[in-house]
């Protein structure tokens, strides 16, 4: 039977997490410097820092590391030994991911467990993980989740969903996986006031999140724009760095490299970015995407044309990281509005 919503007093947050950590590896945002955070494995509950609405690096990193060893190999005398790194040993809990980041994981599921191939590294981590989402009570003006089929209180993809009520969290159990946590000794029953307060916060947040950007038919418009001079203008201010792609919760390109010593080594896959010159450079020296024009077009096309064609969904969840962190203030909302006006 499904449990009703529970309540977790903030003073009990630490023991609540400690209880989880007894059975699971816990991943949550950790402060790396003032105002800078990313998801890391938690050794001490005090490391958890939920104050940053959008940690710089998105939650995708927990399932698809920026740099991941695929296997290790070693030659000992005459024998070769290969060690697999496909599976993680312990079950995991991800705490504090926002609805946009979780929506992005649903999109990545389509990529890494698609019809054609399955990615064991990603999938095993996904299967081993319980996702505790956290509602966005106060979305930023750069957030446009509500324009891309999301929203600050969208629960889809979460196994457990938390809502910050000030002195406590409302805890909702949404799946069987989440249900397993309902007997945590630090949870109390939520009362009527908690539910009313949750509804009020949700309504306020939903009003705030920007839903004004209409992306209906954008894939069709982009079909007509392959040779458009629009890309020449768009690429002008792009520095060609990888900020927007690496901080993007849905970008998922990688590059495989062997890190080899004389008798041992490892195969590693590292995030890659379509905005870098090297990405499309061929061994012959030819580069089919020689300038920023082709590269900025690729980024937009993949998110708003190819991905919708392949998967049926836009590969943008409106988290706003690329807007906030672009060193040249290139704003994807503005770009999309300009495409809409074409």
């Amino acid at each position: 039977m499904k449990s009703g919503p529970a309540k977790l007093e903030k003073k009990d947050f630490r023991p609540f997490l400690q209880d989880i950590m007894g059975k699971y590896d816990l991943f949550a945002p950790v402060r790396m410097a003032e105002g800078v955070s990313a998801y890391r494995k938690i050794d001490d509950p005090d490391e958890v820092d939920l104050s940053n609405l959008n940690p710089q690096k998105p939650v995708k990193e927990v399932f698809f590391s920026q740099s991941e060893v695929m296997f290790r190999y070693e030659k000992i005398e005459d024998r070769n030994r290969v060690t697999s790194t496909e599976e993680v040993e312990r079950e995991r809990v991800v705490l504090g991911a926002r609805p946009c980041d979780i929506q992005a994981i649903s999109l990545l599921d389509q990529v890494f467990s698609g019809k054609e191939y399955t990615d064991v590294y990603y999938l095993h981590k996904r299967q081993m993980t319980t996702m505790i989402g956290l509602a966005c009570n106060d979305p930023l003006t750069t957030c446009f989740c509500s324009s891309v089929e999301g929203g600050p209180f969208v629960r889809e993809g979460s196994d457990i969903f938390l809502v910050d009520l000030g002195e406590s969290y409302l805890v909702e159990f949404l799946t069987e996986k989440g249900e397993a946590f309902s007997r945590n000794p630090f949870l109390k029953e939520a009362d009527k006031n908690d539910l009313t307060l949750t509804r009020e916060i949700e309504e306020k947040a939903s009003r705030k999140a920007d839903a004004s950007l209409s992306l209906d038919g954008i894939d069709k418009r982009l079909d007509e724009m392959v040779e458009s001079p629009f890309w020449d203008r768009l690429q002008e201010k792009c520095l060609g760095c990888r900020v927007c792609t690496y901080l993007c919760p849905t970008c998922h390109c990688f590059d495989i490299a062997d890190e080899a010593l004389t008798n041992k080594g490892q195969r590693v896959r590292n995030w890659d970015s379509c905005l870098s010159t090297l990405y499309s450079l061929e061994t012959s020296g030819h580069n089919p995407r020689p300038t920023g024009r082709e590269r900025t077009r690729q980024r937009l096309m993949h998110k708003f044309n190819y991905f919708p064609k392949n998967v049926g969904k836009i590969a943008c969840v409106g988290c706003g990281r690329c807007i906030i962190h672009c060193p040249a203030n290139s704003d994807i909302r503005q770009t999309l509005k300009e495409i809409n006006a074409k």
Partner: protein
Amino acid sequence: MIQQRIREKAKELLSKKEVDLIIGFGEGTLPLRATPLFIRNPEEADRLVWNSFCENNLATYLHKFSRFKVGLIVKGCDSRSVLALSLEKRFQPDRLFLIGVPCQRMVDRRRVKKAVHGEILHAHEEGDKIIVRGDGFELALDRNEFLYPSCQACVHRNPAKADVLAADPVEEVPLTEAHFDAKKFEKMSPEERWAFFEKESSRCIRCYACREACPMCYCSECFVDSSNPKWIEKGLAPPDLEFYHIVRAYHQTGRCSGCGACERACPMEIRLTYLTQKLNDDVKDLFEFEAGMNPDHLPPLSAYAIDDRQEFIK
């Protein structure tokens, strides 16, 4: 006033077809930001802005437009990058028109954000104050408290070279030690210095925004991208991150204008400029050279003189 003169000059240059395009700053899409703007028609000149948020070093865009006649808006540091690039023969100086702006020093948007509870929805300047507004608050902040570290350490706010100045030169103020991060760094023990550097570089995500924002980083193949020979792995192992940051800084020796574009571009807020500041300081001390201050004076690592100082070679 400065903004008006920039617009007038841009309009004139474009109308008379003396340049193909103007690279300046336009209104940003976020509070506390301006954005690089590229204009080709005189009618667009009124989109140019000048304020304390014009933080990018626009000289970095010259590589993209080396085949064009460019009118470029330059602060002191940007003009020094242009001169340093001219010495490296990156473009023909006669294809450039520099609109120089004596710089008021730029405001660090992230420090302002951190000083305020709640999201800043609007920001503007009134004299030496930055007025920030959000949901239920309005604050007047003293802009001098929120300058970029590289701007605090700047002693060349006036353009080293400009074809026209958009305002009268400002009085240069000598550097105080309090604003010179390299000096603070030098005072630490070697262990403390390493701990600081290690902690900062550990946040690196290898997006190379620092490299791309820098006008002096223009190698057709950066050492980090080379696969034959492979100098460095591409993952996040601390030795690779540290190696990248040390070599990036070293490649700037005698070339860095200290503009701070690298640090501003970093999404992980890694402190970087203390490294290049230290190198700049050493080059000044040993060779009496500052990048981009003299169009005839080659950087010390590009030139050889029989009386070069060499007591640092041990």
